[in-house]
């Protein structure tokens, strides 16, 4: 009885889904698999980016993180906050306590006037988190053509291949390529948006933030746009997971111990089973 009901149920689901298949196949045969879009044809995967924090032996390149922080502070922080990074965390980048205090003091955060109790803006202290420049999302949208600049704390973990993506985006602005115009005459970049081949829909609401070499002054030199982009991508890799280098460093002894223990367990197993060989033949 179960088997008869089972066969009927099986046929019901199988025929039901095959009906969907036939209808889908008919649509595909008559209309094709949908049209090619400019986004699909011209969106590019991120460029290769090599950082010292990559790979199983990765460690932070502290001078690079400092340069990246400088780029963030002078350029990106005009629009983006880092709400999960406190100024005190910058100790990881080997800034001294006094330097951290001085850096924090350059940012304004909401506070309360101790004398009047009124809401005011005060200079940040090391325990504050790196603030967004906008008081709220509405203000952020109003100032940016309705696109809200995202918080950057986790940006490199929140995108596929995130560090390379951030780097690519910063160096990826250009005019609309001629081939694209030829193939998709309807495609356009509306005012207030900027063509960027690494952005999924090709039109990005962020104006190119790094526009000229030496825009940020480095100690002893004027960096290229690519250099600044790489440095800030490295910095944002750190902000996304400040514990990453520690994680990789701890991983090796853990795996080493487990390997050792597993070999011992293997030898013990062999020893114990050797008394009743052969153990299996099928």
């Amino acid at each position: 009885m179960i088997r008869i009901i089972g066969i009927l149920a099986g046929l019901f689901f199988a025929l039901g889904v095959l009906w969907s298949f036939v209808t889908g196949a008919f649509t595909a045969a008559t209309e094709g698999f949908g049209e090619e879009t400019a986004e699909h044809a011209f969106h590019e995967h991120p460029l290769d980016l090599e950082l010292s924090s990559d790979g199983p032996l990765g460690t932070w390149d502290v001078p690079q993180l400092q340069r990246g922080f400088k780029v963030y502070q002078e350029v990106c922080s005009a629009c983006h906050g880092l709400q999960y990074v406190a100024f005190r965390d910058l100790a990881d980048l080997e800034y001294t306590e006094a330097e951290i205090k001085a850096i924090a003091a350059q940012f304004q955060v909401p506070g309360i006037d101790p004398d009047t109790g009124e809401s005011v803006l005060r200079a940040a202290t090391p325990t504050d988190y790196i603030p967004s420049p906008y008081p709220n999302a509405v203000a952020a949208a109003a100032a940016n053509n309705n696109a809200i600049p995202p918080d950057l704390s986790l940006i490199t973990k929140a995108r596929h291949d995130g560090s390379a993506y951030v780097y690519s985006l910063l160096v990826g602005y250009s005019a609309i390529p001629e081939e694209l115009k030829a193939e998709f005459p309807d495609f356009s970049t509306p005012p207030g948006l900027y063509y960027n081949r690494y952005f999924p829909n090709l039109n990005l609401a962020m104006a190119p933030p790094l526009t000229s070499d030496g825009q940020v002054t480095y100690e002893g030199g004027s960096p290229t746009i690519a250099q600044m982009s790489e440095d800030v991508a490295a910095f944002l890799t750190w902000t996304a997971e400040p514990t990453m280098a520690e994680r990789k460093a701890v991983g090796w002894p853990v795996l080493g111990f487990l390997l050792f223990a597993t070999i011992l367990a293997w030898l013990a197993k062999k020893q114990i089973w050797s008394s009743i060989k052969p153990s299996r033949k099928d």
Partner: protein
Amino acid sequence: MSFPWAQAYEPKTGLTKFLDERLPLPRFVYNAVGAGYPVPRNLNYMWNFGVLAGFALMLQIVTGIVLAMHYAPNALVAFATTEHIMRDVNWGWMMRYAHANGASFFFVVIYLHIFRGLFYSSYKAPREMIWLLGVVIFLLMMATAFMGYVLPWGQMSFWGAKVITGLFGAIPLVGEPLQIWLLGGFAPDNAALNRFFSLHFLMPFVIAGVVILHIWALHIPGSSNPTGVEIKGESDTVPFHPYYTAKDGFGLGIFLLVLMTFVFFLPNFLGHPDNYIEANPLSTPAHIVPEWYFWPFYAILRAFTQDIFFIPAKLLGVLAMFASILVWFFLPWLDKSPVRSGHYRPLFRKFFWFGLIPTMLVLFYCGGAPAEEPFVMLSQIATAYYFLHFLVILPIISSIEKPQPLPYSITEAVLGSDKKPVLGENASPAV
């Protein structure tokens, strides 16, 4: 469990004698997973995964309890407390990555455990109850994992919760009120997050309870084995301890090596980047996908794109998705072949390796892919095969197939002939 030749427990020390008369816990352990439990001597490594599943469950409970000490199930701060765990809590990143990847590898282990059962037909008499309880555990695991994934309150947490709870909306008449009641609102929000946290904390203990029943039921007939021939005599078995404790110890080492490689070096490989974006009800992700271990079932859900008479496609998908697991409950009665092991079932074996396994892989791949062609069409063919396999092919094979000759006993399968001394004079089992 109670084979006449099982070694008997004898308390030796004062303490164990004292305990044995008052609370015979050492005796219980000795008979359950000690030298007092005879087990087939020919189990292969596929029989390691039950113990590994038990270990994975305990790992989830331990890491989960620590995480719960630092997490707050409130939609305003859930995402931030998760980041607080990653950044500020001592070893918090390790706990969180171990819990997230631990869940994934719990499912890896369970899938291997289930497919072992399917290949060796472990679900057949007298082990139906073990199997049925196993399917219950699997359903509980899916519910637990689903609710756990909502807790960090990222974009995939939110939209996954919205899509899956939305499935209840497909039920005729009561669907919509039911969905609102389950969520405590029209969309996932604080009420849903709170109850998901409460249930996510509770359910592992429910699972642990069902696991106890699962193992209790297992100890009545004892484990099956790769030949599927039942135990005939003492020479077919070895005591669980030290033989299988040693083998399970080695298996545990391999499991931990793999898991820890992911925890320390690839912790986000199995996750989705969108879950590092805080939940935002106003912004729908381009592709909403569940965690990888749900992909085969998600593919079945999405395979139904056409209504059939008065049944809407969405409802069909929901029914099919639940049915795809519920059919497992009926396997012991669908597969009537007297032979258990796939090794001796030529036709069954062919459909298993060339039908079921590729189908599962296709469903898995399509479930993770966007709902576009050709993935939808592929998953439709695979879904059809999936149901035909369990509900039509398996019952038919089991009536028409001519099984290959079985060995007389496990001992014969291992040694070539039976009635030879096994645990001979020079080889006494260590206890």
